[in-house]
């Protein structure tokens, strides 16, 4: 019996090896395969980034592209040299998810001279229109404005807002902070606290909110620029006996809309979560296919993003999401 079992195993192994060999042969025969160079930020800096990386890899694999993905690991200069390296390797398309929005002119020019279409994703880079081909970007200011609109509709008797910002200078922080600052100025709301947390860190947000509570600062809105900081703020409020969320005293607004955060929206712990869509893969594939077919594409289209309100969210909406 044992012998038979091992014989079957060996046979399976041989067959699978053979299958592998065959596959690589066929790919070898396809000489014209589209190579896409991707300059990513970090592999796993957040749940959002993981979903983002996976989406790109998966979509490219399904489309039959060859992917060359490199990671800047938090280093802006490294990203630029990586991008230039990819241009020298003569990839067919260059996709850049920049850590910072500035300083990409030389790369874009080099790509243009080499005839490589330059697609920017995630953050919009500071480039003149003629230097890039297309973009798959989130409009962070528009995200913030969605939250501001929602806040306006709540008709609170007074607005005392705590703004927990992300990493100083990242475009997500700049856009989202700008939206709430302008919204508050336009509507006469009071921002009682506005600081950026290093690394979008959950624990720093928690400590900041705990300090505010201890020093007697009154607030009734938490505007946290990502899901984790919102969770940290909720922890601090729980520890001090302050109620929050759907039936609480403090309204909690979060950004990014990770799946676990939507569970919190459904549970009524967060009032609102504004999506920041990480599923760039299929969009980039679509763009590249259009470019390959010689179709005209629109340059400045932002990714569509939703908001999730604790009053309207349903279980189906959460289950339908992949990240």
């Amino acid at each position, binding site marked *: 019996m044992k012998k038979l079992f091992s014989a079957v195993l060996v046979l399976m192994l041989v067959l699978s090896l053979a299958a592998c060999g065959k596959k690589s042969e066929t790919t070898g025969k396809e000489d014209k395969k589209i190579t896409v160079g991707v300059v990513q930020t970090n592999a796993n800096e*957040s749940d959002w980034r993981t979903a983002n990386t996976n989406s790109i890899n998966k979509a490219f694999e399904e489309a039959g592209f060859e992917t060359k993905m490199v990671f800047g690991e938090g280093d802006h200069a490294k990203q630029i040299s990586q991008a230039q390296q990819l241009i020298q390797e003569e990839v067919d398309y260059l996709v850049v998810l920049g850590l910072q929005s500035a300083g990409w002119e030389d790369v874009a020019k080099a790509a243009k001279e080499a005839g490589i279409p330059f697609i920017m994703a995630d953050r919009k880079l500071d480039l003149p229109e003629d230097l890039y081909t297309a973009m798959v970007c989130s409009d962070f200011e528009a995200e913030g404005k969605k939250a501001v609109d929602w806040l306006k509709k709540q008709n609170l008797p007074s607005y005392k807002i705590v703004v927990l910002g992300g990493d*100083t200078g990242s475009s997500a922080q700049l856009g989202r902070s700008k939206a709430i600052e302008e919204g508050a100025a336009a509507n006469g709301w009071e921002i009682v606290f506005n*600081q950026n947390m*290093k690394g979008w860190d959950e*624990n720093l947000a928690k*400590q*900041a909110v705990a300090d505010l509570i201890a*020093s007697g600062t009154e607030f009734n809105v938490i505007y946290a620029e990502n899901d984790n900081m919102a969770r940290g703020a909720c922890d601090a409020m729980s*520890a001090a006996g302050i109620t929050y969320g759907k039936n609480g005293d403090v309204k909690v607004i979060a950004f990014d809309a990770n799946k676990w955060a939507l569970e919190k929206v459904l549970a009524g712990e967060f009032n609102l979560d504004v999506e920041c869509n990480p599923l760039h893969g299929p969009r980039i594939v679509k763009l590249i296919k259009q470019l390959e077919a010689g179709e005209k594409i629109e340059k400045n289209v932002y990714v569509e993003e939703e908001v999730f309100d604790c009053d309207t969210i349903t279980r189906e909406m959460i289950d339908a999401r992949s990240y």
Partner: protein
Amino acid sequence: MTKKNEKAGNDLMKHIKPVIRHRLFIPIVFLIFLLLINIFIKPGFLKIGLGKDINGNPVLIGNIINILNNSTELVILAIGMSFVTACSRGQDISVGSTIAIVGGVVMRVLCGNETQPTELKAPVIVAFILGCLAGMLCGAFNGILVSRFNIQPMVATLILFTAGRSLGSMAMGGLKPKAVASFSYYGNFFPGFPIPTPILITAAVIIITCIAMKKTNLGLYTRAVGINDKSSRLNGIEPSRIKFMSYVIMGLCVGIAGFIQASRVQTVNPYTIVPGIEMDAILAVALGGNSLGGGSLNLPGSIVGAYTIQTLTSMLTTLNVNTNAIPVFKAVIIIVLVAIQTPAVKRLFGRKTQAAKPALGGGKESA
């Protein structure tokens, strides 16, 4: 009348002089100075109230409690960093990254391969011990590089500084799990007990360190190696062993700090956990009056330094200082703190309080 006053003044000076010349004088004065600024701006700053959390458990709420609570990691790291600085004449810049590794190990042990586990996969004590072991292993790695291969501490620890956060992510299997609420007791409150657990852990660590300093020759040996390798070898102390040990102690401190940090929010993001804490820990050591060139070991100073930094951080939050101004604000205060402890300023200070008595050497300080 005037004579009596003068005499009383002299008597007073006799009592004040040793206080002023005490090596903890300046760090403590600064801590008090910061607290006074806070009280001046927010009169309720020192108030501690007994509140209830959302489940009805009693909890202490107050700025002082927050400072004591949130400085835990920094205090523990400052103790380890003092040993490393004193004997190896350099700093361990990998502590933040090593905390990411420890946090990764702790989360992996507690959560396994699930992102939202409904129970702890292992007893917390196992996670704690494995976390400490991971920290000590990293410390041992740094220690070997420094003590056996004589690599400069900052260069040796640069390796883990660079790789640590990625290693932490690997330890977690690339997942971002969130452990169940019962793991939060160690970084927050035990239900029904109003004092935050980290404060108790800090107290325990400080007491254990005190006992170790009193009962063993660790402090003496550490300083001896820091002052002069060769002469301590001639006196029968093996410098490389002491250096190695100091890095392992640092690793243990990192292990404890990482465990608490993981427990605070029951999740770990290796790429962003404790951003920049290595610099704060080094700063705490410097504020405590230790020479960063080694040879002095002033543990109480480092601890007071750590509390000073946390007070400053907390102050910047409660005062809602503009984000862009925070680094400048911090830098100005730190420059003042460090400058006042330099020999040049001390001499000026000394001439006023005590006429031309030679200042005590930094190397003679004891813990």
